[in-house]
């Protein structure tokens, strides 16, 4: 037995004495053993299930709608029952049974849709799965429910794109905010934060005003949300930085590389964004210094005009370099900074050097110089460290 081997090893090392070993073994032997189903019974059950499913499949077309729905509902109840028994009688894994039960709920929705020719061009059904899964999450607090709730939430947003109303948007925001605030595990908080960000993008559909700055407005709003959970600065700060960096690269790409027809940029909105970004800068500098960088996005509105677009490239480049240098000096991980730096170089390369060999050579020489300089710096640092020791 694994435990006995470990105890023997710990006893040999002198961590515990023989009395403790005996006590532990007596205690463990008194614990109820997980009940195992006999192998033949499992095989029999599998064959029986296959026979039942084959019978249902063969007669599916001629079954009345209510019988079809009833059968799927029966399966749902069966799996929730197994989940309950698994918890009580200590066999199998309750969460697996409940997840299958949840899937059966989804299946009964699909069967109902099919049987009654229910329209799928609305978000009622994803809403049902979203709410039910969230309820599962808040009751059992397990990661898979959070993941399914995230997927269902994303479906709610996607399905409601053509028909989204302020009421539905408000409901979604309220539910997702509650999920965010009462999340206990990090992954659940990341999922709910992502849905909150996506609901900000829905303003493109809701508001009768053409602007490409909704993502930045949304991100700035979510910074203020950090005030309610300051202890999660590390997690949500990293997320905000990743989304902010991604946004800057996308704006740079849209403005520079593609000949897209950007809706006319509103100067008043751009200036308002800059003013708000000063507020974000002050707030982040005082409370959440790790994400002060995202206030740079406030300048994007003013940098999207034809005359100022070159400055967007310069800002992106400076931010990428400055972030790397500061992260290096503060001994923080450099992976994120490097990925962002490389992304910016790629975008700039495609904007300015594509189809221009002389320019691409210029960048190539620049890159080689950068590698040489960083190599020299690394060598000097290493030598200094050696002298110090």
């Amino acid at each position, binding site marked *: 037995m694994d435990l006995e081997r470990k105890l023997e090893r710990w006893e040999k090392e002198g961590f515990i004495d023989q009395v403790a070993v005996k006590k532990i073994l007596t205690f463990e032997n008194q614990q109820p053993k997980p009940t195992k189903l006999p192998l033949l019974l499992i095989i029999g059950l599998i064959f029986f299930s296959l026979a039942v499913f084959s019978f249902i499949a063969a007669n599916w077309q001629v079954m009345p709608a209510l019988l079809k729905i009833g059968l799927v509902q029966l399966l749902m109840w069966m799996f929730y029952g197994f989940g*309950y028994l698994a918890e009580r009688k200590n066999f199998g894994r309750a969460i697996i049974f409940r997840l299958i039960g949840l899937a059966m709920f989804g299946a009964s929705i699909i069967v109902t849709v*099919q049987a009654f*020719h*229910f329209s799928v061009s*609305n978000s009622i059904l994803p809403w049902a799965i979203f709410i039910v899964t969230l*309820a599962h999450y808040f009751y059992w607090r397990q990661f898979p429910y959070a993941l399914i709730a995230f997927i269902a939430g994303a479906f709610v947003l996607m399905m409601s794109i053509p028909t989204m109303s302020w009421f539905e948007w408000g409901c979604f925001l309220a539910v997702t905010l509650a999920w965010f605030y009462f999340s206990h595990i990090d992954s659940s908080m990341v999922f709910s934060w992502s849905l909150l960000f996506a609901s900000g993008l829905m303003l493109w559909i809701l508001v009768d005003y053409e602007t490409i700055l909704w993502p930045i407005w949304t991100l700035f709003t979510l910074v203020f949300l950090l005030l309610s959970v300051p202890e999660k600065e590390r997690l949500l700060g990293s997320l905000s930085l990743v989304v902010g960096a991604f946004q800057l690269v996308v704006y740079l790409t849209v403005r520079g590389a593609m000949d897209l027809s950007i809706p006319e940029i509103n100067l008043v909105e751009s200036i308002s964004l800059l003013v708000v970004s000063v507020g974000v800068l002050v707030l982040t500098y005082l409370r959440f210094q790790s994400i002060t960088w995202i206030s740079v996005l406030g300048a994007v509105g003013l940098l999207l005009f034809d005359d100022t677009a070159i400055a967007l490239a310069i800002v992106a480049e400076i931010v990428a370099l400055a972030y790397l240098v500061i992260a290096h000096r503060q001994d923080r991980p450099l992976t994120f900074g490097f990925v962002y730096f490389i992304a910016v170089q790629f975008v700039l390369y495609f904007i300015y050097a594509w189809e221009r060999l002389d320019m691409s050579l210029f960048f190539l020489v620049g890159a080689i110089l950068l590698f040489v300089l960083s190599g020299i710096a690394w060598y000097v640092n290493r030598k200094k460290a050696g002298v110090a020791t």
Partner: protein
Amino acid sequence: MRSFLFPALQSLFIALIVLSFYATSWLGEQFVLRAEPFDPVDPFYGEYVLLQYPDLKPSDSLQNGEIYFTLKQGDDGYAVIDRIDSQAFFGSIRGTYYNELITAPQLEQYYVEQGTGPDLEKARNLAVTLDVSPWGTIRPVYLDVRQD
């Protein structure tokens, strides 16, 4: 035992959806609409026939977008539009008017038995029987080849 509240509420939700459709049939009126098929198959929900309705004609003043209408039985037994408006009114069916065609979300597609879709498509002349509740919900109940 509290964990059983979840399947109970889920079953209640499904039961309410089913009940709403049966209520449409119990309390509503039945119409038969002339229908024409176009384009089937949904990998997720199964085989269905997309339908359009030649008898559902708009009024001249109507603009493309969301519309509300009621049905009445025409002289030949097939349903035609009784009242149509761009504003909702009690008992109206919510639909859309686009490209000279009027349809409602539930009238647009009809799920059929596996394998019967292509035959229905070939037949071209179809008839949809549907129940319409006094509050404007609809329940398509039957799709068949039109004999006239």
